[in-house]
């Protein structure tokens, strides 16, 4: 009993410690800005990831980003450049092999363990500080230098600027590819462009949240937003809001403890999603009730004059209205 209490309090003290919080805060100001920028990029990119059903691809890109970063660490090159090269390369391969949903999934499944394996190989060959190794997988916040922050902001602005420039066609091509193609939009070109943007966003996220947990930033906020609204505009706003809450909130909480940042980010992210899912379930119960009532009111309308021919063939092509 006493033992349990001690364990509990030591757990608490390692998760939430707020001594010297003010001093720490100054130290991690860069990280906080980096987190805020990432939240913005992750929230926006995430909505397109969800529209395009690319969640699994994000995971695959993150593993190759990790391999790239580990390789850079090994040869003493810049880690950010390494992870960028890895993830953009992976994204391009997926983009050019015509990644879409089902067939793409198995391809990602093939690519992902290979990337992870490569990364582990490079890390085991690396003889530097082991905390560097661990942070690539699970994230870190303390060592965001001004230079790192600058490159992050520049890349984020670039990603967002390109997204704004292709906003409408990309939304069209993501939600309704057949008609977008018929309208003359370069659907394939947009798809490859988006994969590059996704690659860059993943590489940025890997710096902070780590390769294993990128999904918490690029998927969960957007998925939570889509639980709450089907308006495209509101989806983006909510997704960014949730991503910011997870990132900035996670960093602020992580300051107090001596465990990595990622558990905080993923937990906030998951909690937000859970709440959104409950809200959706509650709404759907009342909405399906409403819809059922209106449906019974409209099924009494006549089905059109063409229905009256009695050939029997007619019923074969008709589907019941819900």
């Amino acid at each position, binding site marked *: 009993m006493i033992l349990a209490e001690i364990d509990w309090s030591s757990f608490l003290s390692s998760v939430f410690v707020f001594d010297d919080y003010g001093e720490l805060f100054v130290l991690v100001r860069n990280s906080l800005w980096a987190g805020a920028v990432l939240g913005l990029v992750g929230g926006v990119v995430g909505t397109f990831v969800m529209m395009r059903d690319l969640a699994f691809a994000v995971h695959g890109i993150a593993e190759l980003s990790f391999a790239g970063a580990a390789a850079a660490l090994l040869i003493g090159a810049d880690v950010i450049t390494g992870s960028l090269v890895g993830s953009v390369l992976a994204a391009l391969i997926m983009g050019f092999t015509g990644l879409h949903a089902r067939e793409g999934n198995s391809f990602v499944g093939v690519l992902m363990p290979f990337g992870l394996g490569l990364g582990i190989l490079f890390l085991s060959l690396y003889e530097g500080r082991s905390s560097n190794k661990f942070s690539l997988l699970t994230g870190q916040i303390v060592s965001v230098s001004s230079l790192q922050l600058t490159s992050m902001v520049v890349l984020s602005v670039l990603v967002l600027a390109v997204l704004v420039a292709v906003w409408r066609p990309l939304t069209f091509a993501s939600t309704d590819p057949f008609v977008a193609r018929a309208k003359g939009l370069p659907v394939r070109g947009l798809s490859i462009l988006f994969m590059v943007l996704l690659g860059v966003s993943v590489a940025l996220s890997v710096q902070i949240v780590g390769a294993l947990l990128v999904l918490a930033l690029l998927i969960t906020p957007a998925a939570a937003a889509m639980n709450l609204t089907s308006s495209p505009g509101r989806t983006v706003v909510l997704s960014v809001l949730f991503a910011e809450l997870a990132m900035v909130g996670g960093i602020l909480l992580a300051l107090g403890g001596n465990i990595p940042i990622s558990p905080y980010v993923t937990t906030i992210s998951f909690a937000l999603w859970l709440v959104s899912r409950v809200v959706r379930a509650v709404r759907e119960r009342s909405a399906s009730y409403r819809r059922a009532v209106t449906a019974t009111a409209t099924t009494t309308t006549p089905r059109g004059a063409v229905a009256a021919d009695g050939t029997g*063939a007619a019923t074969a092509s008709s589907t019941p209205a819900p």
Partner: protein
Amino acid sequence: MQPATPRTGPAGPGPQNDAAAPATAADAAPAISLRDAELAFGDRVLWSGLNLDVAPGEYLAVLGANGTGKTSFLKVLLGLLPLTSGTVSVAGTRPRVAAAHVGYVPQQRGFPARTPLRAKDLVAQGVDGHRWGVRLHPRRVNRRVAELLERVGATEYADAPVGLLSGGEQQRLRVAQALAADPSVMLCDEALLSLDLHHQHVVSELVHEQRERHGSTVVFVTHDVNPIIDHVDRILYLANGSFRIGTPDEVLRSDVLSQLYGTDIEVLRSNGRILVAGRSDSTHHTDSPEEIIP
């Protein structure tokens, strides 16, 4: 000019080189024009020697069994598929250039349940979804979308998520989306498939109305001509690598289709409804010619 008929025994008759549009519009430039058009996938020739002018305001139905190149014909008109040989023009220009001004009504396909689009957003994509950048004049777009929704009778569910709409509701929106471009040419690809009869009627009337009010040309690809038979001026009937062009009364006849298919075909009319059936299996009547293809 005998078209290749790779997979069939008795070859059908040579195609009619029918370039004549209805006399009323003979002097106007054709909305759609194909010259010596051939489409083949490898050795398999879907159709060849196709010469066709569709006049402005004309309603052309493209019929035929699965695999005869109906949908490919539409893809050619949309510029998504190049002809193997010959030339094609839509609205006086290359199909790819014309694509932005063509109204395209696709076959009904469901949306994933959580697609972040409402009915009005789907229509709005027809208004400005192909433009670059973000929407700068939402009010103007909203007005236009409201107008289009009103026209197809979809105002009631303007705010409903597309993933939750029925097939019929979705197809109304598809028509509204196609009308957004104020199209001089409407291309419909099995747009009535899997709809109940009421919605088949509603959607085909909406397409017809655009032709009546704005003189749009309509090309309607379908496996069942009955829902649109009252509106159709001419039919392009594809079968066995061959084809026939003419008015419904000229093409939908037992002798013509028997020649085309190279087997006994019976065309029955009942209550203004047309049934095409293989005579050898007369107990099995069907309104869909694809069921008689072995």
